[in-house]
């Protein structure tokens, strides 16, 4: 069976005054109906990978890849019109901070129905019903009231659940969640994640979960990609993180606090230049 999404040798580069800067340098992975975690430090190219898949890298940024296929269909550098038909409808994205990712001057109801109506061409009434259903699905108790509210009238945790409702309404096959909880209060983080996780699994979607937080990724994902400086340095099952072989992953793990094995001081990750470019044990031996 062909994977939902297949990416080979993805590169994203930006021209700068001192030559081109490669934000993503040859990322390859397959995504099935599973939850794939992407972990890496700030600037390692996680968000750029997500945006490249959605065709949202704005010029002068350039995206190239040997292959980028959705359900076997090439989607790399599609004409804008065809890309728009994919966005929202088949691949969607939830971003970091609902305070900024919801339009402040538009009611929540309109923001939810807008995308749904675009892709399904239903009546306003049907769209409204769908929006209320989605709000209920993300466990918002008073959907009618929230439907007519503005983003500043809801809390951060609710805002992020609204984002999830909005992005899942047109029934996409893939959801990219780009640090969906790092702007949220710790107390609501898990709740939001559980709601997202349940919806994604019930619908048999593919999830790309981008995060800084190895623990979170280990808990909510099936498989993890570790990124460093624009490349995937290691890929392994989430339950197998302890057995990571790459020194960067081991470093990340060692710098996490642990309850079962408390230490006086957490170790600080020592980066090595060789990680940037050395050949890694590729998850796709024999080339692709």
């Amino acid at each position, binding site marked *: 069976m062909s994977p939902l999404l297949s990416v080979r040798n993805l590169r994203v580069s930006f021209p700068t005054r001192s030559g081109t800067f490669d934000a993503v340098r040859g990322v390859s992975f397959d995504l099935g109906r599973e939850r794939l975690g992407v972990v890496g430090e700030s600037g390692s190219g996680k968000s750029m990978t997500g945006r490249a898949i959605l065709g949202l890298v704005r010029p002068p940024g350039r995206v190239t890849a040997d292959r980028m296929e959705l359900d076997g269909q090439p989607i790399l550098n599609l004409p804008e019109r065809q890309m728009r038909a994919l966005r929202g409808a088949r691949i969607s994205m939830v971003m970091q901070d609902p305070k900024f990712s919801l339009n402040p*001057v538009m009611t929540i109801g309109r923001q939810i129905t*807008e995308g749904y109506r675009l892709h399904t061409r239903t009546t306003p009434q049907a769209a409204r019903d769908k929006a209320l259903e989605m709000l209920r699905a993300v466990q*918002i108790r*008073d959907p009618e009231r929230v439907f007519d509210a503005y983003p500043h009238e809801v809390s951060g945790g609710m805002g992020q659940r609204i984002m999830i409702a909005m992005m899942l309404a047109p029934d996409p096959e893939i959801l990219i969640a780009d640090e969906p909880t790092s702007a949220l209060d710790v107390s609501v983080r898990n709740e939001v994640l559980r709601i997202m996780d349940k919806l994604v699994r019930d619908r048999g979607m593919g999830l790309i979960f981008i995060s800084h937080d190895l623990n979170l990724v280990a808990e909510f994902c099936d498989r993890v990609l570790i990124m460093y400086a624009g490349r995937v340095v290691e890929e392994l099952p989430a339950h197998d993180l302890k057995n990571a072989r790459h020194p960067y992953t081991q470093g990340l793990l060692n710098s996490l606090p642990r309850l079962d094995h408390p230490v006086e001081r957490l170790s600080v990750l020592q980066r090595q230049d060789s990680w940037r470019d050395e050949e890694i044990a590729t998850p796709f031996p024999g080339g692709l």
Partner: protein
Amino acid sequence: MSQTDTASGGGQGLPPANTPPANTPPKAEAPSHRGARLRRRARSLGGLVLSLALTLLGLLLITFIIGRVMPIDPVLKVVGERATQAQYDAAYQAMGLDKPIWQQFLRYVSEVLRGDFGRSISTGHPVSEDLKRVFPATVELATLGTLIGVCVGVPLGVIAAARRGGWIDQIARVLALVGYSMPIFWLGLMGLLLFYGILGWIGGPGRQGIIYDGMVPTVTGMILIDSLIAGDWGAFRDAFSHIVLPASLLGYFSLAYISRMTRSFMLEQLSSEYVTTARVKGLSEARVVWGHAFRNILVPLITVIALSFGGLLEGSVLTEIVFSWPGIGQYITKALLAGDMNAVLGGTVLVGACFVGLNLISDLLYRVLDPRAS
């Protein structure tokens, strides 16, 4: 605010309407809170009106003080150079100048409120009558100019931002640069020379041709509107052919300003996260730009437009002189040169009041357009 917000409503959905968490306003108003919301609105509106009244009073205080400190003897202007001491004293008392200064101010305020700015010594008419004549001419020109500036400048600025670096952006940049650096009287003279002198496409200086002068009964004082009310198409066409060039020039200058401001407001919005959200949803770029980003710049944009309109209401003296346009800019300038303080201060108060009024309007629109305002 974000801390309490996140903590209060986050996990449990909306807090029940009747038990808002301590000292955080309830999220998403329940119907029962609508009354409170209205009351809050009314109170803030009351505050707005009060602050406007104070602003106007401040304006009057300033014009009053200017009137007193000017090295121009108001009595002498009235009685003339050759008056006797007795005549002078009588006028001095009649004008209330022997009273304490605060009484003089109160008298001034009550006169202004009644629309009495005294008599202009250069025209011999009451200043209020003069203003009624000259101000509509300026309003007509400023309105048309602003209309052009908005109708062209706003779309130009939006498109320039949406296609940053594209050819429309380049054209907008050049247009604005020329607009900022070209002296308006020179453009005006060249325009007159070309379109009136050589091509004969438009009417010359002044508001009307000689045949139509005084033919349309004055209702608003704006000839375009008055001729429409009278149903006189000939007069309308004539007035239009006179106003089109000066209005286009003013429109061009306000366009230069408005398009630049629009562009920078739009660039800021287009780089924000909710715009990415809109793109992720699969919306067309036009809907992203106009339906999402543009709606978010309306508030600052209205302020910019109001400011630019206010600037034109002051009367662009140079334009009025080049086009012999009998507006308030010319009126105040002439009065100033003649030492005609009543006319100067009356005009200043009127223009100042217009600014205050425009401020009020943009404030009210802000409350309507931004859901976060109340």
